[in-house]
């Protein structure tokens, strides 16, 4: 009789004696690896989950043969709701003994579940935007792949300012919550360094869908550049309305935090043309790991990878690599391994910063292409520049050490 069969029979017959059900479940999974990917699979953020899962499963498919153990990939639908996310993570921790978690549709979700996972002694790799994840709210269990607001601004505003030395008047549109404030504060710092006049800012709520009033403020300011600091559907709405109000003809437009390909496809080349975008990932970036990933995704998923496909591929690959290197699924040792990891990633060379659990990776400045210049259906933009910018250990608000 195999060990698994014996344990199953023991549990069923109540012969487990002093073992609790949790111990039996853990024993059953001892030679396997269970990954839990949380994202929104329903509701307004359902795109995140759908495309994220494609990337996560692709990573499992490509890396599990080298793991020496079976890998089970589970998804958790948070519905884009922090309360739901916390409840489902608690269920996964308490009832399924889940310890290795990935993803996160929204910053608020990720911040909340990271505390639960840390409390349970697990490991969590995410890619959300809120700087607190690897800043003031950092913890031993949580790691982040995405570049923080500091790097996003440094790699977009600074190079655009250098490219357009006469554009000295900038106007900003900012969502009024912690992520937007992070982008705005970093932008103001770059403005000061570059001698740029910040001629105005319009704050808006996270519920806003209509931006014409704020765009009118931007038009009235006679700015040279409009810097859009919101994200997701709001940046799509803002940019679409900015173009319809003729702002693209009056000033340059920069979207500092874009989702990349899926946003470009939603907007179309007419709107994207000549607009600058900051992106975490671009499928056309020339890196060996990225070429392999794009080819694999096109073969398996029959699509060019979007941001969420890439991000989930990246964090799932990181987790699997850490388990393989540590040769254990013990969360503490997996976390220790992650802290010192370097690897060839899909954005180029990537490495973990041990002092704040932030991955050091490239951020890309793109410029939208004219429709006539697109080489294929996904060739919406060209890479203008890319690089790595992160707050130093002294600047970091994370106090792990």
């Amino acid at each position, binding site marked *: 009789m195999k060990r698994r069969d014996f344990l199953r029979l023991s549990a069923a017959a109540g012969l487990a004696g002093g073992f609790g059900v949790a111990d039996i479940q853990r024993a059953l999974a001892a030679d396997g690896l269970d990954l839990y990917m949380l994202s929104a699979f*329903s*509701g*307004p953020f*359902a*795109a*995140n989950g*759908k495309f994220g899962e494609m990337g996560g499963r692709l990573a499992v498919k490509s890396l599990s043969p080298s793991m020496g153990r079976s890998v089970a990939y589970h998804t958790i639908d948070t519905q884009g709701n922090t309360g739901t996310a916390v409840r489902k993570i608690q269920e996964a921790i308490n009832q399924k003994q889940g310890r290795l978690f990935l993803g996160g549709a929204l910053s608020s979700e990720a911040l909340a579940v990271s505390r639960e996972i840390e409390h349970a002694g697990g490991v969590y790799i995410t890619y959300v935007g809120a700087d607190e994840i690897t800043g003031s709210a950092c913890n031993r269990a949580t790691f982040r792949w995405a570049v923080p607001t500091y790097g996003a601004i440094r790699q977009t505003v600074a190079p655009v300012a250098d490219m357009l030395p006469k554009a000295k008047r900038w106007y900003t549109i900012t969502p*009024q919550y912690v992520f937007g404030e992070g982008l705005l504060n970093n932008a103001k710092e770059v403005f000061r360094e570059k001698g740029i006049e910040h001629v105005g*800012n*319009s*704050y*808006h*709520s996270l*519920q*806003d*869908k*209509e931006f*014409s*009033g*704020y765009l*009118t*403020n931007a*038009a*009235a300011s006679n700015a040279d550049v409009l810097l859009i600091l919101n994200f997701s*559907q709001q940046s*799509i*709405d803002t940019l*679409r*309305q900015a173009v*319809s*109000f*003729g702002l693209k003809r*009056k000033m340059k437009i920069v979207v500092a935090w874009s989702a990349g390909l*899926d946003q470009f*496809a*939603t*907007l*179309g080349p*007419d*709107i994207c043309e000549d607009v600058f975008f900051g992106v975490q990932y671009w499928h056309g970036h020339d890196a060996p790991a990225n070429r392999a990933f794009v080819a694999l995704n096109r073969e398996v998923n029959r699509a060019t990878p979007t941001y969420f496909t890439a991000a989930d591929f990246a964090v799932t690959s990181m987790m699997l690599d850490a388990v393989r290197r540590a040769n254990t699924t013990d969360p503490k040792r997996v976390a220790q391994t992650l802290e010192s990891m370097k690897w060839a990633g899909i954005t180029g060379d990537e490495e973990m910063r041990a002092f704040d659990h932030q991955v050091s990776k490239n951020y890309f400045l793109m410029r939208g292409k004219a429709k006539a210049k697109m080489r294929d259906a996904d060739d919406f933009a060209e890479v203008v520049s890319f690089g790595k910018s992160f707050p130093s250990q002294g600047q970091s608000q994370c106090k792990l050490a």
Partner: protein
Amino acid sequence: MGIYLFQIINGIGLGMIYFLVAVGLSITLGLLGFVNFAHGMFYLLGAYLTFQIVSWGGSFWAAAVAAPLVVAVLAFTLERAILVRTYKLPHKYQIVATLGIVLIAQEAVVMLWGPLGNGVSVPDSLAGVVSLGNFQYPLYRVFVVAVAAVLAIALWLLLERTTFGALVRAGSESSEMVKLLGVDVRTLTSLTFALGGMIAAVAGVLIAPIRGADPSMSGEALGIAFVVVIIGGMGSFTGSIVAGILVGVVQSVMSTLWSEGAQLMVYVVMTLVLIAAPRGILGRA
């Protein structure tokens, strides 16, 4: 032109869009007394059908005719098959039924068209901007305002100056009395519901080139529609126009005065109206 004057003009344009989104709800809520949380779904389908027809190579104008008609048939069928069963039940059953329908529709949209938003181009003949001093206003928005104005007049004539309108209004007061006159009240109710759905679809068609079509837009439409109907008064078309413009102007002007509070002020206005005139500005007693 000063920025505040332009913001008022922009607000009026915005208000007419809000009127379009809300007037269908005003009909179902005000005249039928039905709490229709599925209103946003008709708006959503209007936008998605437009996207689909344009994607197939059809023109925007073909979509503008076809999408509202398809949605009207759907609304008629929905009312006959499901919603009629909730009329005599408390409002909470109507809310649950229509909310359930919205959730099914929203997930169906995700399955059919994917979870990402889709853009719809402005028709070539309406591309470009109108210059107003230092400012520019999209020509397409001027067109939407004009359509909203024409639709408002047509609706007013339909409901205030035709036999159909008289019967709908009478039916909302006393359906038994109208039945005694030999009128098929059931069909009348279904047609009125279909009319509300069709107007919501018209709003969806017209909004598609402004903000695209995405699965979350039904909830957004419902939110602003309820605000406009509450401020304007249930069942009042004039009230919907006044409220739509009021909301649009407040939001637009506040974008300059206090941008972070622009959205909040819309709800402050609604609260003030509720305190001063609980039935809305032009609501029926």
